[in-house]
């Protein structure tokens, strides 16, 4: 039997659990209530803080690392804690399963170099694939959130039956197959690696781990092996999930140590202590930059809802699902300023996608924007009162805006598709786009100015349109709307 857990290690476990649970809840909570309390937890993540140019947070994280070592990796980083959970089960299955391995320096610094180059070259979405916080966000949003939502829906089912409004149903849907696949693969690969070998990802691939590793090398506090007490049993090394304790040589690779303090408990001789040491140095990470690639797509014509003619009373007409039109320019959420700004700052963590209550945001499937959010209006539209995505974004990719600002930001502009418009195709009065437009940008005009009896069709004042998609979403033409929104390359105020 080992001696009782050291107080320090227990503190690490409690703090890590707390951070992990609360950050996960940020991705699961679709009501937007937790964000107000714990939104800061996403904002102190390293890469988002760097991309947001959040100097205070970056400096604080650097100082913490220089002081305590890579506690960031064992407490704050949710992906790190997730790997610890897998590793825990790995150790349950087989005790003393790890062993020391020399640092694979070429791989670590090689990956970091490629990561930085890719960011600078403007392929942030590719770089985001290996960024820890956003990788966890994708796992939580794609794999954990559906379970949470199904649980909620079960509660809502019972609440409905006892006439309570405590819970309400939410729609569970896959926003993007490619992102789902990425999240699934990430979980399987990382989970397997963590289960077998502990923190392999953190010490060979993770760019944040590598940067912090450069700093923790010089950390003030660190685990140190007291050679007087050490009997060379090697238990510390066999229980080090970072594979960084070279017990025969009594040396620890501090660039890879994530300060989990498991070794303190593992050593039966009490030969390892977490204590002071001197010498410091800092480095500053760089901001990234990229350019936008436009892809043109041909516009497809659409079919139209066919009115049903029944002689009986009751029943409901079948409603076809809307299909996404091909937009020449994608629409990105208000506050993201421009396609370029978004792609430069977004790590694809999916927090905004998880927060969107209107089914508008989903990760892009376009290669150059993979995992980054874009808007589409098949399930809902960007409602005037909602600014949630701008509130949750930890990287500043979506800048914080208020409702007044939102009402004047043009993220795109509506385009009329004559071939689908019901007054022309079915001869009915419509005008739903004009009626539902929150800015009054659409007016119904005569299709034949010389004939006052002719059908009325929408005409769009693009100087007023903000691209919210109410017209597209509420257009009765299905599956393709008779009015849709084209994104703006750069957002502007109207």
């Amino acid at each position: 039997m080992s001696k009782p857990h050291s107080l320090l290690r227990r503190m690490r476990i409690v703090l890590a659990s707390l951070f992990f649970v609360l950050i996960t809840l940020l991705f699961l909570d679709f009501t937007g209530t937790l964000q107000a309390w714990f939104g800061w937890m996403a904002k102190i993540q390293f890469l988002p803080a760097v991309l947001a140019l959040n100097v205070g947070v970056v400096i604080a994280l650097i100082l913490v690392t220089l002081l305590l070592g890579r506690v960031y990796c064992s407490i704050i980083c949710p992906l790190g804690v997730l790997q610890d959970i897998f590793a825990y089960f790995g150790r349950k299955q087989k005790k003393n399963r790890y062993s020391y391995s020399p640092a694979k320096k070429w791989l670590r610094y090689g990956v970091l170099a490629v990561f930085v180059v890719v960011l600078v070259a403007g392929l942030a979405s590719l770089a985001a694939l290996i960024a820890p916080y956003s990788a966890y966000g994708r796992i939580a949003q794609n794999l954990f959130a559906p379970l949470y939502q199904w649980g909620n829906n079960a509660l809502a089912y019972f609440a409905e039956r006892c006439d309570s409004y405590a819970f309400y149903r939410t729609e569970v849907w896959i926003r993007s197959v490619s992102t789902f696949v990425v999240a699934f693969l990430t979980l399987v690969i990382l989970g397997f690696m963590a289960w077998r070998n502990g923190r392999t990802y953190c010490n060979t691939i993770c760019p944040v781990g590598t940067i912090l590793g450069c700093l923790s090398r010089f950390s003030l506090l660190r685990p140190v092996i007291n050679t007087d007490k050490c009997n060379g049993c090697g238990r510390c090394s066999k229980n080090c999930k970072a594979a960084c304790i070279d017990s025969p040589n009594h040396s620890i690779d501090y660039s890879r140590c994530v300060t989990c303090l498991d070794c303190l408990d593992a050593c039966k001789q009490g030969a390892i202590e977490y204590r002071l040491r001197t010498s410091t140095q800092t480095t500053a990470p760089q901001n990234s930059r990229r350019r936008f690639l436009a892809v043109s797509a041909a516009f497809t014509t659409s079919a139209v809802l066919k009115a049903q003619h029944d002689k009986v009373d009751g029943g409901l007409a079948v409603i076809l699902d809307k299909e996404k039109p091909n937009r020449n320019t994608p629409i990105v959420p208000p506050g993201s300023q421009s396609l370029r700004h978004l792609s430069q700052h977004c790590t694809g963590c999916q927090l905004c996608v998880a927060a969107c209550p209107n089914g508008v945001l989903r990760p892009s499937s376009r290669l150059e924007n993979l995992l980054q959010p874009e808007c589409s209006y098949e399930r809902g539209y960007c409602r005037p009162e909602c600014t949630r995505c701008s509130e949750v974004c930890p990287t500043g990719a979506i800048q914080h805006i208020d409702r007044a600002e939102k009402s004047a930001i043009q993220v795109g502009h509506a385009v009329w598709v004559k071939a689908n418009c019901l007054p022309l195709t079915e001869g009915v009065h419509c005008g739903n786009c004009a009626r539902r437009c929150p800015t009054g940008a659409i007016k119904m005009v005569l299709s034949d100015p010389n004939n006052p009896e002719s059908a009325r069709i929408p005409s769009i004042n693009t100087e007023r349109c903000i691209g919210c998609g109410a017209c597209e979403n509420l257009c009765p033409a299905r599956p393709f709307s008779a009015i849709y929104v084209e994104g703006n390359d750069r957002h502007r105020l109207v």
Partner: protein
Amino acid sequence: MKSNTLNRRNFLKRLGLGTALTAGALAGCQSNKKSPNGASQKTELDVPTDRMTYRTHPTCGDQVSLLGYGCMRWPMMPSADRNGDIIDQEAVNQLVDYALAHGVNYFDTAPPYGRGQSEAATGIALSRHPRSSYLLATKMSNQSFARDGMTGKKLYQASVQMYENSRKYLKTDYFDYYLLHNVGGGSGIPFVQQRFFDNGLIDFLLKEREAGRIRNLGFSYHGDIQVFDYLLSLHDQYHWDFVQIQMNYVDYRHASGSNFNAEYLYAELDKRGIPVIIMEPLLGGRLANLTDHLNESLQQRRPENSIASWAFRFAGSFPSVLTVLSGMTYKEHLQDNIRTYSPLDPCTEEEFELLEKTAKILVEYPSVPCTGCQYCMPCPYGIDIPSIFSHYNKCINEGYVAESAQDPNYREARRAFLIGYDRTVPKLRQADHCIGCGKCVHHCPQSIRIPRELRRINDYVETLKQQGV
């Protein structure tokens, strides 16, 4: 053997067990006599089987139960192919059996009811009983043909076909009551002429009456008062055997839309000695549950009676009323209504006044006068019109429609309204999808301006959504 049992009984009595046993065994029989005390058992024993109030038809002498079964709202269930709903025949059979066993003998259906399945389902359920044990009513619902522009011989043929189909579905050689369905809608008198008179359909129906295949001929009326007066002016010629009107304590003096006050309609019919059949006594269920305050004022007087029972007692209190129709989907409603009319306890003058006062308050609320008849459905754009209205009305009743953001219960009301809205109506079928094409408007027997009301409700939803956070 006989002495043996007697011995045993004596033995038991001596032990004192006998008294206990007989008391237990007789408890059932006794509770029937004692039920006005509302004693122990609250089961089916509370629903009397033999005390229904009957009205006698002045000319043909039919004994008609004061409670009539409206077959418009039979329970539905998803069809086997998941492609829409079908009537739950098993449930219908049970309801019909129960109704007949408790003295209800009038059944009213129509070809378009229950998405066109009501006649067949009603026919299956009733044909399991002797034809003489029930009175059957169905209707000539050729308004949809006429509205599509059918006239003359073509309309006549389609209508006669509809009549023959009704006989087939209802498995009968004759109808006890046959109605010209929903007169008063559309363009008024010209529309009635198009449907029945220009094409000679009325002569066909009169002949059927002579032949005994229609025992009583009448019409069901909504809307344009000129049509009502016009048809009554033809009474000498056609001799209407009965007329069906919408009457309840709200419509009596405060009819909505283009509907006319039932007070006038009833008086006109009473004057001519024409028996009256009442539809919408509950105003599509709206009078089954009022606002808390109004509920209280009624329940205070009759704590053991339902709110709905007031509406049924009101309608039944008029002597020329032959039967009061109710579309009962649930057995509990059927039981409650049987109780109300077994026997009828007519409203007193004071109670009439109370109901009139209640009606005056009710019409002040911005409720939509929808009765959930589904005539407007299916909306070609998929809007679930009756569900939207019923949710809105329910929220008004329950105090969940806030006047302004300053209301003390604003947050609660907002949450209840919006969450309840998404629960009752799928997002794609909500009011914001109404394009205002207006196809529903002339189907509505209450002449509700549906697109305008949907727009009003959607404006309210928008305010709630935007004022929140």
